[in-house]
């Protein structure tokens, strides 16, 4: 089942900005990342999903219900990007208020079961010790945790998070990543709009790339990264001599040579090379080749910022006018 399904969704602001003709499907139970540079239309798209913006044209469903209808938001948890909660309330009061907005009756929000639920949710996001403090005294990171608690309070089937970790410290980001993995384990679909590519790379099963309001690519993350023609691989070598590059160029052959790059070399013969390889076997072939040429192989492996490379390539190709 598709939790989010949009068809030719368009929303512009006096003909500028926004998103245009976005058709996107998000399957149930996955963590989905929405990527794109600033001004790509990500926030507009997310706001349409959350019922905050009305599309100019196109249609879509969220959890099987038409976009914009209150029913579509019944099992939706949403953390906005630029938000604030009532400064004058405590987290417990904020969550009770949101529970009322979510359809709970007053007596339900006063029940012991609900109080336990609030306590558990605050504990989940690490705010158990601030439950009775006024939100006005919270740091940005604590407010973000409270926003996450509000999004998770009513057992959502879909959680839309707009930059959920932008104000968090490394420990906070690690905790949120762990939490999102746990949610996926419970069958909750997470739709993540973030600029933190390492989060996307670690968490997301699928992703989409928006640029200039248009959807350029979407699908499983590993397919997207490989769709640009392979993986970046790095090699740390010893015993590098001035004539080594010429010898390697002859040995590698014309197919691989354009993808091989000498990044750095020092006076005592240590060198860093990168290569764009189609698969692990090709990387293994290069390792064997280096050793046959008398080099010492200290380290070899795929570059961790593959998503970043893919992101930049997508953005640059669009700037150059070559749609993917």
């Amino acid at each position, binding site marked *: 089942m598709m939790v989010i399904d949009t068809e030719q969704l368009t929303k512009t602001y006096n003909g500028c900005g926004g998103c245009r003709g976005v058709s996107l499907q998000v399957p149930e139970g996955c963590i989905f990342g929405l990527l794109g540079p600033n001004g790509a239309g990500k926030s507009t798209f997310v*706001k349409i999903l*959350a*019922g*905050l*913006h*009305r599309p100019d044209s196109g249609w879509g469903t969220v959890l099987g219900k038409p976009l914009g209808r*209150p*029913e*579509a*938001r*019944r099992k*939706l948890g*949403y*953390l*906005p990007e*630029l*938000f*604030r*909660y*009532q*400064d*004058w*309330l405590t987290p417990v*009061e904020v969550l009770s*208020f*949101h529970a*009322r*907005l*979510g*359809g709970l009756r*007053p007596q339900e929000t006063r029940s012991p079961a609900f109080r336990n639920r609030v306590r558990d949710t605050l504990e989940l996001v690490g705010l158990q010790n601030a439950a009775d403090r*006024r939100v006005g005294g919270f740091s940005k990171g604590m407010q973000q945790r409270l*926003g996450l608690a*509000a999004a998770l309070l009513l057992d959502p089937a879909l959680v839309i998070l707009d930059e959920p970790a932008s104000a968090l410290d490394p420990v906070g980001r690690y905790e949120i990543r762990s939490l999102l993995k746990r949610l996926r384990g419970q069958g909750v679909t997470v739709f993540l709009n973030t600029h933190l590519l390492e989060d996307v790379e670690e968490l997301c099963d699928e992703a989409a790339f928006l640029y200039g309001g248009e959807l350029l690519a979407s699908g499983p993350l590993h397919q997207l990264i490989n769709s640009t023609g392979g993986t970046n691989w790095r090699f740390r070598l010893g015993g590098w001599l001035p004539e080594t590059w010429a010898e390697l160029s002859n040995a590698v052959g014309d197919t691989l040579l354009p993808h091989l790059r000498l990044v750095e070399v020092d006076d005592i013969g240590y060198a860093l090379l990168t290569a764009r390889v189609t698969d692990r076997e090709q990387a293994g072939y290069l390792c064997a080749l280096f050793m046959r040429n008398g080099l010492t192989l200290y380290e070899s492996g795929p570059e961790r910022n593959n998503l970043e490379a893919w992101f930049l390539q997508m953005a640059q190709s669009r700037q150059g006018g070559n749609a993917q």
Partner: protein
Amino acid sequence: MTMYISATFKELTRKRVFLVTLILTFIFLVLFAFGVRAISGIGEQSQFSPERLLNNMVMMMLGLFFAQFLSAFFVLFSTMGTVTGEQENGLLLAVAARPISRWRLYLAKWFGHAVWIVAYSAILFVTVVWTVHSLAGLPILLGDLLRGLGLFVWMPLLFLSLTMLGSVYLPMLGNGICSALLYGLALFSGLVEGITVYEGSHPALDKFFLLTGLLLPTDSVYRRSVYEVVGGADWAGLMTADMGPFSIASVPSNVFLLYTVGYAALLLLLGCRAFSRKDL
């Protein structure tokens, strides 16, 4: 629909809006009581002498005039940023993403404010009238009092409907200025109409009074409220002249009161519609 009653109360009390308002209101009422006591003792006339009755009525008119002023400013400052203000600071984003229709959310907000505005205005009205009644001996009948009270609290609710509608379209400050100007125009129109009792009317002025009354009927409702509280036709004859700008030159009819109900309903309807279509 009732969820905003306690939320608004917490906002008013914890942001100390209520506290500051109540302190200033208390100071006004104490000063007003001193004034009433001082005026009522002048000349030592009989309690029912026309001169003393007129003095007491002037005091009550002044008291209610400033009371409606306070009430209107309470509405203005507590609600001028209801939509765009909360949109700008990010409060509305998480709220509007909940499974509640926008029109219901709008009405819930209106209702949440209305309850406390009515409570504040009613306290203000009853205190002013009770002060004049108890210190100066102005005779007031319960039926008149209740009719006057009903109309007096209706006035800020009308203004609330207008301010909230403005807050859907205009930024907080712009809405505050715009609403205050409209309220001021209605007030000014009422004061000028009071003066025309001496000078006689003019067709152009009559049209101006009618148009401002239709645009924002708060002053008309206030005048009808005062007319009712002083006993309607029984005593109000005294008030139609000799009170300068506070004279009641014309008393709005029941049909006009019905118009104000329709007007408020229309403002609410337009507000619900505009808020439902607004991109947040």
